[in-house]
């Protein structure tokens, strides 16, 4: 293990430790616990072919933005660079990079042949003068240049943190416009960083809470298209949708995929009472999973598909429960003050993210799957609906501002409560669902 990686892992350990040592909920202030981000440099990638200089430079910018956006890295801007990299194969002049205190250096080269784009890159530990991992190359289309950049950034992030990456991923969300009492909502999809927004529905009907399938090819969501809430499945590539039939005269909502990509768990309301059901998406066969006079909703599978976490007000207020995926006895896991909703199981399986309401404030929080080690990551007038980055280290959620002019914005925060930042979207945005890493 290189010195760079070691010092970085130490940083993570220090971040996690205070929370682990604490008994009961720990409120993490976003302004606290700031570690020193690791300084890095990405000199412009070298154009290997004529006319590749622009895209080579842009790729470098996206890589730097990805890394800086984590809050774990700090870019040393080109204006401070002493050295230049004009030949990808030439030896690195480490002294030039040490002098500006760049601890990590990313070098690369880009070639374009027709519509084909190839990116080669290397990651260097400047102070030990060693390469981190081996040089790699990614190939794709010129249209997909941002994805190539995200893939490089994912590799850099993984090599330095020892964690999986999350930059080559997408987010499906609800795009919002208009005033609060006449809000238009439409389904949209974008890269995780807000680039390449594409609309999947028009705004004729209210749409809510989209969720990706485990492979990212389909989206489940709720629409008022018929005048009544119904769940739909949409093929992202073809932008084709179909309604999933549920009982006439009832509402169906809160759909989520099981890890098998075939089973859907959802809420069905009949006669004012809401329970959780599962459905085979191909045959339409439905099975009841809960049977209580209380509200049971917002189900989410564990990554192994064996358990479901959901919210219920059977105790009198919204709380979180875990039950076997086949239904049966549920165990309450939330015991702090206030109300808990919208639980989402982490893709790593180790934690559950949730929305908490307490004393007129909303929080996004995380807890172990048995309810221990609760940590609140955010606080505002209205935060809700967490979704996990593919590596289980970052959470995206909706923040709605107060009052008549209130608007919804997407934010990300990491699971230590650090690095809260808005996601750039055209207009208002709510109900994000983060895709798995793309292939």
């Amino acid at each position, binding site marked *: 293990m290189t010195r760079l990686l070691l010092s970085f892992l130490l940083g993570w350990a220090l971040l996690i430790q205070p929370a682990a040592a604490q008994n009961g909920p720990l409120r993490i202030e976003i302004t606290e616990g700031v570690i020193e981000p690791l300084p890095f440099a990405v000199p412009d990638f070298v154009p290997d072919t004529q006319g590749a200089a622009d895209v080579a430079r842009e790729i470098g910018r996206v890589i730097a933005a990805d890394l800086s956006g984590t809050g774990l890295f700090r870019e040393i801007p080109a204006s401070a660079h002493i050295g230049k990299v004009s030949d990808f194969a030439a030896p690195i002049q480490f002294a030039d990079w040490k002098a500006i205190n760049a601890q990590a250096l990313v070098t690369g080269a880009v070639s374009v042949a027709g519509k084909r784009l190839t990116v080669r890159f290397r990651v260097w530990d400047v102070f030990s003068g060693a390469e981190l991992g081996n040089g790699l190359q990614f190939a794709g289309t010129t249209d997909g240049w941002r994805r190539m950049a995200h893939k490089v950034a994912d590799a850099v992030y993984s090599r330095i943190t020892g964690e999986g990456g999350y930059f080559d991923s997408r987010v499906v969300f609800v795009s919002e416009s208009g005033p609060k009492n006449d809000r238009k909502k439409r389904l949209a999809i974008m890269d995780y960083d807000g680039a390449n927004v594409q609309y999947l529905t028009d705004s004729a009907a209210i749409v809510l809470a989209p969720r990706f399938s485990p492979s990212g090819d389909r989206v489940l969501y709720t629409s008022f298209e018929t005048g009544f809430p119904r769940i739909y499945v949409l093929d992202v590539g073809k932008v084709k949708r179909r309604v999933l039939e549920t009982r006439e005269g009832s*509402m169906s909502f*809160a759909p989520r995929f099981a890890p098998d990509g075939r089973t859907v768990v959802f809420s069905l309301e009949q006669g*004012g009472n809401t329970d959780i059901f599962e459905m085979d998406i191909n045959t339409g066969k439905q099975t009841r999973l809960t049977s209580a006079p209380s509200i049971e909703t917002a189900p989410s599978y564990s990554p192994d598909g064996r358990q479901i976490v959901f919210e219920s007000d059977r105790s009198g207020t919204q709380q979180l429960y875990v039950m076997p995926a086949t239904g049966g006895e549920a165990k309450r896991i939330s015991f702090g003050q206030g109300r808990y909703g919208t639980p989402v199981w982490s893709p790593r399986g180790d934690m559950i993210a949730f929305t908490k309401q307490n004393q007129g404030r909303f929080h996004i929080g995380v807890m172990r799957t048995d309810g221990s080690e609760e940590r609140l990551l955010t606080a505002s*007038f209205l935060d809700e609906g967490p979704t996990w980055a593919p590596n289980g280290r970052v959470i995206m959620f909706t923040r709605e501002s107060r009052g008549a002019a209130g608007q919804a914005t997407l934010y990300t925060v990491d699971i230590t409560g650090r690095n809260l930042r808005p996601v750039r979207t055209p207009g208002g945005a709510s109900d994000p669902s983060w895709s798995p890493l793309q292939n």
Partner: protein
Amino acid sequence: MNTLSKVMMVGALAALAACSNAKNDGLYGDGMGGAGYGSGTAGSGLPSDPSSPAYFQQAVGDRVWFAVDQSTLGDAARATLTAQADWLTKNPDFTAVIEGHADEQGTREYNLALGARRANAAREFLISRGVVGSRLKTVSYGKERPIEICSEEACYAKNRRAVTVLSSALAG
């Protein structure tokens, strides 16, 4: 759409101006939970005509309100719903969709379920006062269609509601 419902729609246009959803054909009231309440423009016919939807909205009262996170009907709500039941009994050509709504202080899906509870509480009460169940549908908008948009209890109190939106059984 038949001629009768066309004629009736003219009166309802103002109320529906804010609604672009064609599925609102034949609805009287603030379907989609959007337009104003008691603005005098809503509904069809004259408020002075006791069998008009406008009379139902303004004189009978088309909505009831709820306490925070509750779906039980208070005295005022029961009085309004009793009057609604009487009106619906006297005017058998109308059906209704009861819209349940929540204020913004709650998570989206929970609020959908809560709105459904409220709509159903109103429906059950109307049925207990003699309205045939098949004339009454329910839908919940959760917190998606507030009427008042301030983030204060004064607004929240008006948003926690169940609205009985009439529909002519004769409309196409």
